[in-house]
């Protein structure tokens, strides 16, 4: 209760300050937009469906790109974790590649695929694949050996051992990896869309710039943050918390 109150107070103060500065007209509105201007842009954007379309397009790209990352990352990560050779070769390469900002893959993507949907998916995959793979690998390695031993001891073998023991035992690590991968994929997507123009939230953001429409810039930024928060902070955190509670890792929430 106290926490909710604090949130409300903080954000009302923030918006109040914003409104005050806008009202005083310290800067012209094309540099410093008003809260009601942004609110109006948001309303009309949703009303004429342009925001819905952009969200739909971006989310579709996320689902495809991120989906590919997750599947590849799972296979790669588990593979690397189970082989010393792969760990030293491919694993090392992946760690060094991770220092590359995902947008650096855009030139390759454009040269290979042209200005197509495939190019943007490529950027999303490259942006999140590495982090999914690496966290999958570390998760698999951190997994206490005792569970697999206990499983074998109780008669589990092969696929059943993997399905009934290894997989559930690594679930907390896997979810952390998925969450991190999502955050990376989201950032890559938006930056990709900003540079390269075909629909999506990133493009909408750049359109705001091109039209000198500061309200739209801020409105789209708010949308990006809100969507990111919704998936990351609400969806993934809920799963994570449930898992931790059940596993007994969390202190009472």
């Amino acid at each position, binding site marked *: 209760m106290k926490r909710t109150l604090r949130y409300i107070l903080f954000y009302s103060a923030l918006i109040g300050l914003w409104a005050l500065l806008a009202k005083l007209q310290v800067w012209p509105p094309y540099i410093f937009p008003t809260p009601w201007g942004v609110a109006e842009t948001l309303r009309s954007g949703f009303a004429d469906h342009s925001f819905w379309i952009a969200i739909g397009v971006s989310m579709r790209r996320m689902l495809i790109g991120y989906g590919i990352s997750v599947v590849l990352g799972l296979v790669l990560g588990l593979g690397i974790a189970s082989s010393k050779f792969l760990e030293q070769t491919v694993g090392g390469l992946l760690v060094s590649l991770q220092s590359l900002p995902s947008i650096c893959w855009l030139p390759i993507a454009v040269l290979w695929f042209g200005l197509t949907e495939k190019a943007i998916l490529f950027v999303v995959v490259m942006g999140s694949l590495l982090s999914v793979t690496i966290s999958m690998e570390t998760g698999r390695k951190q997994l206490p050996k005792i*569970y697999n*031993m206990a499983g074998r001891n109780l008669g589990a073998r092969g696929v*059943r051992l993997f399905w*009934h023991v290894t997989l559930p035992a690594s679930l907390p690590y896997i979810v952390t990896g998925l969450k991190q991968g999502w955050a990376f994929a989201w950032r890559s997507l938006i930056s990709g869309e900003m540079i390269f123009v075909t629909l999506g939230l990133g493009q909408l953001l750049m359109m705001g710039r091109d039209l000198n429409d500061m309200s739209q810039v801020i409105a789209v930024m708010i949308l990006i943050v809100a969507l990111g928060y919704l998936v990351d902070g609400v969806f993934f955190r809920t799963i994570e918390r449930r898992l931790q509670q059940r*596993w007994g890792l969390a202190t009472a929430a």
Partner: protein
Amino acid sequence: MTQSLRKPLVSAERRTAHRSAASHRVELAAGSIIERRLGVPKLRLRNVSLDYATNSHHRLIALKDINLQVQPGEFLCIVGPSGCGKSTLLHLIAGLHQQSSGDVLVDNKPVQGPGTDRILIFQELGLFPWLTVAQNVEFGMRMKNVAKPQREAKVREYLRLVHLHQFKDSYVHQLSGGMRQRVALARALATEPDVLLMDEPFAALDAQTRDLLHDELERIWAETRRTIIFVTHNVREAVRLGDRVVLMTFRPGQVKREYKIDLPRPRHLEDVHVAGSARDILNDLREEINKSIEEEYGLEAHA
């Protein structure tokens, strides 16, 4: 008394004489005597050795020429200083590791990998935190494709046996240490193994809980008639529980001596006789502990 303990007792007369004279009855039981007296052993270790490379130059001999026989329904305790390979020995019997040489025979058949006829209760238990108590107990039966109604009946039976039935839907982290021990025990028993291997299961518990679990284990052993091999570093616990106590040496792990414990059951940790027997074994153990300390210090000095 201590003197007679230090030498193997060869003749039967001396054994009888010794037994009647002893204030507390600890005696040495050479493997051959037991073999002659009883039928086919449940478990038999023949010249079992295990060594592995610690680095490219050095090989560690963990176990050396272990010879041991365990009779069906026997409660055998293994004591030794830490690092003597007693846990490793249990892993070999469980089939989780492979010995370098020698044979591990169960019912005269060599052990090939893990099997539900031998269940190991790990020191860290290894209960599955993503499953409820009942699902943990059920796990081994599920892997054996036992039908659901039968599984449920067994889960009920074994959870009753360890007095945990009302906690069947709890998760592991919601239970106390002693309760977790009992879940592990129920999970192991539910697969109905012939041999129960226990690796210092009560080491991390407080004294009262341990006392209680000793009583429960003794009762369950009496009710289910399983063969139990119980590893501990606590000599008094070994004497409290075992029909026989095997003392292992420090690196390489070898059987140093065996002691037959003929004290009447139920026993208690505080019994004078338990304490007395424990003292004699402890004297022998102390040598090994000293050796292990010397070696650890020696290694540090060289490092």
